[in-house]
């Protein structure tokens, strides 16, 4: 169903703020759609614009800074806390990101991301700092994320770190599988369980 993910080489957008909650990622007033599309334009809506006015972008917000672009969002600790709204993952993916890097993800957000082929990469605090520093020094700094090998690398310095991912979810992401197909194939087992 989704687009598979393996190796991503890209520049990154830095968002060095801790405890970014899903209300910031996509404010509740934008949850009224009945489809999954189009949430990207309201990503970080209230941090991007003055008084909700699209003609007044906040210049110091990284997503508005023309120096920063790419498929990777780099965020600080406890990213995606709060509400279970999957719209947060949809909005990030819809805005063109395939990877979010942080030292710590909130649980539900992490699951929602994995279910939408948005790869959450958890790194150490030390590595995260190096990534922020590298982007700070050179907004064109590349990052390489390799899902098969479970590595994230800063090619400029050669610094590399391994990251964890559930094996089953890794297979899903690498092959574009989704959980529902897998669970549907277990229908008989589910009926058996219900009879116990």
């Amino acid at each position: 169903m989704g687009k598979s993910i393996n190796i991503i080489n890209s520049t990154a957008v830095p968002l060095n703020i801790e405890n970014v909650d899903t209300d910031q990622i996509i404010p509740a007033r934008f949850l009224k759609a009945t489809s999954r599309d189009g949430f990207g334009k309201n990503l970080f809506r209230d941090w991007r614009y003055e008084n909700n006015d699209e003609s007044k972008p906040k210049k110091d917000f990284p997503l508005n800074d023309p120096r920063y672009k790419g498929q990777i969002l780099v965020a600080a600790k406890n990213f995606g806390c709060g509400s279970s709204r999957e719209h947060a993952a949809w909005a990030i993916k819809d805005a063109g990101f395939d990877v979010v890097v942080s030292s710590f993800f909130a649980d539900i957000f992490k699951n929602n991301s994995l279910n939408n082929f948005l790869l959450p990469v958890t790194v150490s605090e030390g590595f995260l700092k190096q990534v922020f520093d590298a982007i700070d020094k050179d907004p064109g700094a590349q990052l390489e994320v390799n899902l098969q090998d479970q590595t994230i690398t800063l090619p400029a310095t050669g610094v590399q770190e391994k990251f964890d991912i559930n094996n089953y979810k890794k297979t899903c992401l690498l092959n574009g599988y989704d959980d529902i197909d897998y669970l549907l194939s277990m229908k008989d087992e589910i009926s058996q369980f219900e009879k116990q």
Partner: protein
Amino acid sequence: MYIDRHLIHEVTSPQAFAGLNKRGIKVLRPKQVVATADHNVPTINQHLPIKEELSRLQVEALKKNCEEHGIELYGLGHPFQGIVHVIGPELGITQPGMTIVCGDSHTSTHGAFGSIAFGIGTSEVEMVMATQCLMQSKPKLMRINVEGKLNNGVVSKDIVLYILSQISASGATGYAVEFAGSAIRSLSMEARMTICNMSIEMGARCGMIAPDETTFGYMKGRKFAPQGTDWDQKLAYWKTLKSDEGAVFDKEIFIKAGDIEPMITYGTNPGMGIGVSGHVPSLNEIEEKEKPSFEKSLAYMGLQPGAGIKGKQVDYVFIGSCTNSRIEDLRMVASFVKGKHKADNVEVWVVPGSKQVEKQAIEEGIDKVFEEAGFMLRQPGCSACLGMNEDKIPAGKYCISTSNRNFEGRQGPNARTFLASPLTAALAAITGRVGDVREYQS
């Protein structure tokens, strides 16, 4: 994991139904699904069509989807309508030992009955609709023990805000949390629900409390609770649902109930709380790398590092949400404000959690108490907890709120939220300021 009960609402279900339709399949076990409209419904004139078009469309889509898939819907106008985490327990749908999910993070509320209950995203909602199952990795285990007697003026909301202030908004991420100890056992079911409700604010997968006589007493006679011999059998099973003596947890936290005072948050995540008599941390109390986030938070709130919070003027008081909108919360507020009147500078909204709560409040004359106090008793829904409907706090204004999140913009763009207990909120309604309820109670 097999799911016993699936609760759905208008905001996180439409894309899941669309997914099923695309696959050409129906909801597998519609009798195990219960639906209500709560997140974006207006809280006045619920008998009229919803004015806001997108909200109306979502509520209509829920109705259509429920009809097509044979799901019971307690929609607007139904005597059982209300906030999904209020109606589940009050109708006896929530039972000990069940697995319960909902596309809403505050599903952890139901853990107060000794059930495994947690919030899920819309893809997972679709998964449960299609298969009644979820893929889950096993969480780590944490027990938070609160022992001793609570101080005067301290209620369950203060306990959970205190825990949050100690372990932070990410302190329980990756854990299933059991709340235990004599102070927890002494609480009513409503009060226990308040605590489990906010376990997600610590990042926990779920929060739970072992069922006991208080639980069984609450459940007996509820609309969908077991009856007759079925009750006896279930009760025998429920009594087995507790942690073994000597059970080992990955992490254990001990809290003295006597250390807890009435709490209030000063920042923009629920872990940023202090006792009402305390002060906002000063900059030298904050770790270097956390300073930018801390300063951003205080700038948003219009507060200074090191400042006291008592006496701070508020503009709005919101009593409601899945955290604190049950009949006991309304009774607590009513008994405090009876015979008093709100301060001129505040607007006070009381939003009952459900039609059943509203009915009970009217039967007990609580509506009259509120009317005489100048409070507005509105109709059930999530309301100003997340401002998806018209109930928004204006930019720059301060709201003392019994809800669960003080995130930037949560109650409306640039609105500023102080989270507190119903008692502390009631006091602020009367005085127009943040105060210490202990100074007003005998």
